């Protein structure tokens, strides 16, 4: 791998210990994956923020790096294990909260913007078409590569942090044109009636294409919220970082649809819906919207539906701090909280320590269903956005 003079200095420790450790990680990954050089990145998104995942060794590692490490590009964080300001409202234990805040402090000491969200592209970390970035968080990776046309591999927590501390990432994988080419055409012959069905379609495609890059035909229109939901689901169930959608995503026009064709119909959507609706759910005791984090538009819709009503179940709307701040300023938070629901910023139902607290969850997110089952042993019922809000009121 060819390094510049400055990169060699970083590797030799001339720019501090944190930078040296970061460069060791990047050079090693570059050699493993046959990169021939580093590429400068425009921004970074870091995962591994919840104390539930990091534990004390992760915290210890971050503290050591923060002794002399400073990020060189705009860097934002994934959701934490709790709302960083109003954690008590969510019933988070005090000892967990203290450790979580120490994690945030270590990131802050490195110059990281501690907006903890899985949707950085909605709140100021917005790359442009063709930009190289180093993002962790699988749903944001799918969005950046596919919807924006920026270029990033699926980073893990430490490799993204290493990119932030050096401003670079090894040039391999999805940074290279030849690895972004679609391999299979998915012809969808049904009609998606609702945002949540985009998530369901993502799961259906993931299970049939097993990690291949897809070129999707048959979707007429898609909003940012719909693509957010679709990419999150595809990334969760297939583990891939890019897709192309004809007439919708910017790089699709570069390619002919691959000759390898797959056909999906409304029946496939329906059978996936069945797989995301557990049998024998006696009573739903947890309702959540905001996986990935809710947009302003979604919060406006929820406030409209909850105005003057009272929820009967624990209902979390999870979003980023900046979106919550806007909701506070314009009175949406007040409407939602007067109805007894909670807007939780900085966190989500995937990373909060809620195992054992609930039995059955209703949500509009196919990604949230996966983690609710895998991590928390909840039963799940997927439903439309409107039905989810109605479930909280029932």
């Amino acid at each position, binding site marked *: 791998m060819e390094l510049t003079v400055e990169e060699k200095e970083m590797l030799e420790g001339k720019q501090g210990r944190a930078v040296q450790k970061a460069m060791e990680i990047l050079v090693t990954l570059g050699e493993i994956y046959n990169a021939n050089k580093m590429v400068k990145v425009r921004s970074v998104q870091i995962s591994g923020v919840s104390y539930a995942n990091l*534990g004390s*060794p992760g915290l210890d590692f971050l503290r050591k790096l923060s002794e002399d490490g400073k990020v060189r590009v705009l860097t934002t964080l994934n959701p934490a294990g709790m709302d960083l300001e109003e954690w008590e409202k969510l019933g988070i234990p005090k000892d967990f909260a203290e450790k979580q805040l120490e994690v945030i402090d270590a990131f802050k000491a490195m110059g990281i913007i501690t907006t903890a969200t899985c949707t950085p592209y909605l709140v100021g970390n917005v790359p442009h078409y063709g930009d190289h970035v180093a993002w962790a968080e699988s749903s944001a990776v799918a969005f950046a590569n596919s919807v924006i046309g920026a270029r990033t591999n699926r980073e893990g927590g430490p490799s993204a942090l290493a990119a932030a501390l050096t401003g670079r990432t090894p040039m391999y994988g999805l940074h290279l044109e030849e690895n972004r080419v679609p391999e299979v055409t998915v012809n969808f012959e049904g009609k998606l009636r609702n945002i949540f069905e985009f998530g369901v379609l993502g799961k259906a495609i993931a299970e049939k294409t097993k990690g291949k890059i897809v070129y999707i035909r048959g979707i007429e229109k898609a909003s940012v919220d719909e693509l957010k939901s679709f990419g999150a689901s595809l990334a969760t169930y297939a583990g891939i970082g890019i897709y192309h959608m004809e007439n919708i995503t910017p790089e699709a026009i570069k390619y002919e649809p691959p000759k390898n064709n797959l056909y999906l119909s409304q029946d496939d959507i329906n059978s996936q819906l069945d797989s995301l609706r557990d049998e024998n759910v006696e009573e739903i005791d947890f309702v959540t919207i905001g996986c990935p984090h809710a947009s302003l538009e979604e919060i406006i819709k929820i406030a409209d539906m909850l105005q003057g009503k009272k929820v009967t179940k624990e209902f979390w709307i999870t979003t980023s701090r900046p979106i919550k701040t806007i909701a506070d300023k314009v009175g949406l938070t007040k409407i939602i909280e007067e109805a007894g629901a909670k807007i939780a910023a900085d966190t989500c139902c995937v990373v909060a320590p809620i195992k054992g607290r609930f039995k059955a969850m209703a949500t509009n997110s196919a990604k949230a269903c996966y983690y609710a089952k895998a991590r928390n042993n909840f039963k799940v019922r997927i439903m439309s956005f409107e039905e989810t809000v109605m479930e909280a009121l029932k």
Partner: protein
Amino acid sequence: MIELKGRKIYKGFAKGKALVSSEPISFYGGVDPETGIVKEENHPLEGKKITDKILVFPKGKGSTVGSYILYWMASIGTAPAAIINQETETIVAVGAIIGEIPCVDKIDISKIKNGDILEVDASNGAVRIYNE
């Protein structure tokens, strides 16, 4: 003595007994960092202690949090003395670097048997097998 040549992932030198797994290892969830014992059910190393061993396995698997587990084990003294892989991937590579565990890959691990005395000269990408 047989010498196998591979590729350095993280530098260092270690000598010890080989503990060989034919299956990939997930450090997050699959190994108890406090005791160094493999706890993944039906894993060929289930119940075995990896601490201070030369741990030989094809590659890592599972969550990227696994890198932090290797760091954790190194910081409390339950980590393996060195790691030898067929193909190291991101999780193990990053774990070895941040935990400063000597690590070599591109080794034909079928040539190594459980209990072999190994010398890992990671800086030179070399593994030496000493049988009696």
